[in-house]
């Protein structure tokens, strides 16, 4: 059963097109990573799903309802980002109490435990917090609200490494105990990939690929070896990335359509085969040129 269905969703801001014919659906109780470069349309997509902004054209359904102005969608959705709007006239404890009033499934105990684990003070106000602390506090609201659709847009902005890994662990544990649909956008795919089941890669306001992380891992393969030697093998394959290593060697990332026998032959001719890290692969896939930043300095 799908929780989110987007068909040909386009969003324009004046003359600029932020999203173009976005079509995808997200199944129930999956953790999906929304990945893309800056300006790929991640936040715009997530805000449309949360009912914050309205699509210019196309069809958006969340829990089979159009999210813009839907109370049902709002009651079952939480959108967490680093600039969550919380009043400075209330202290942190009061904000949590108010959140509890709004969300049916609110877990008061979890909120309190996280609150004291991350050493917040009840009398602090939100605007007194540092960037990382703000994100941490927002994350507590995001987890404790236990919404059927939980959206985290760059939730770890400003958090230090220890808090980030605490957050991922907390997210996973709470998800295992209370499965729900989670969308997680991040610049650090390498940090979140183990948490994810699916990945939605956006490029220039369009869906570039939408598949399970395990499929993504097998999508491409890295070859290192003599330039001419490699060239023989990849002439009819799609090359995602190419760079020079050392004097005569090349490193290329190509689509992984090799058979087992071919791979064995490759190794025999002295070409090293390596797995491509998902994060690197996503960077290669969304690069405009095959050589990356090196192309600028040619």
């Amino acid at each position, binding site marked *: 059963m799908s929780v989110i269905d987007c068909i040909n969703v386009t969003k324009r801001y004046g003359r600029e097109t932020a999203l173009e014919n976005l079509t995808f659906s997200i199944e129930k109780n999956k953790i999906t990573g929304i990945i893309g470069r800056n300006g790929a349309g991640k936040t715009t997509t997530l805000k449309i799903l949360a009912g914050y902004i309205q699509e210019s054209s196309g069809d958006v359904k969340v829990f089979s309802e159009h999210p813009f102005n839907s109370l049902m969608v709002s009651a079952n959705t939480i959108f967490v980002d680093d600039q969550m709007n919380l009043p400075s006239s209330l202290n942190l404890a009061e904000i949590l109490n108010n959140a509890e009033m709004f969300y049916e499934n609110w877990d008061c105990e979890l909120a309190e435990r996280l609150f004291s684990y991350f050493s917040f003070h009840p009398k602090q106000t939100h605007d007194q917090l540092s960037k990382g602390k703000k994100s941490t506090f927002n994350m507590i609201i995001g987890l404790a609200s236990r919404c059927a659709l939980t959206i985290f847009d760059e939730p770890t902005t400003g958090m230090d490494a220890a808090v980030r890994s605490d957050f991922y662990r907390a997210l996973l*544990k709470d998800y*295992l105990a209370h499965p729900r649909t989670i969308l997680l956008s991040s610049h650090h795919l390498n940090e979140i990939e*183990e948490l994810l089941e699916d990945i939605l890669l956006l490029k220039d306001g369009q869906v570039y690929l939408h598949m399970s992380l395990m499929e993504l891992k097998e999508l491409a393969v890295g070859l290192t070896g003599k330039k001419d030697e490699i060239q023989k093998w990849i002439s009819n394959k799609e090359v995602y990335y190419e760079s020079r290593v050392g004097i005569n060697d090349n490193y290329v990332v190509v689509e992984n359509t090799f058979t087992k026998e071919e791979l064995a032959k490759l190794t025999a001719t002295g070409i090293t085969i390596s*797995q491509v890290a*998902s994060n690197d692969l996503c960077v290669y896939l969304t690069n405009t040129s095959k050589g990356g930043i090196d192309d600028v300095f040619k």
Partner: protein
Amino acid sequence: MIHHDGSKPIYVQISDWIETEILRGNFEPDQKVYSQYQLAEMFNINPATAAKGLNVLANEMILYKKRGLGLFVASDARERIVNRRKNETLKQLVVNVVMEAKYLQVSETVLVEMIHNVYNEIKEDGS
């Protein structure tokens, strides 16, 4: 335990880990193994990934399913694991060793001699 550097897919690492636990005797035949959720929690991974790791073992008949109860260790799990590791993992390791030897122009006799020596060293350490 789990390496996140992308050298080996996580689900393969999960099935490898369960295999090792079976070889070490931490799981007896007909004993229930961890569920995908327990594995997910233990290794901090998505339960779907853990499920895939378990499925690999189920397909190789190292684990068997009991409806509604979960996955259990097959009676011949040990043999299957040893056989497969011998035929695949060990063989691949040998291939790598031979390749490296060729690269360094180490002759077959010298290589066999080296392996022989390592065997003796380990034996002495163990006694």
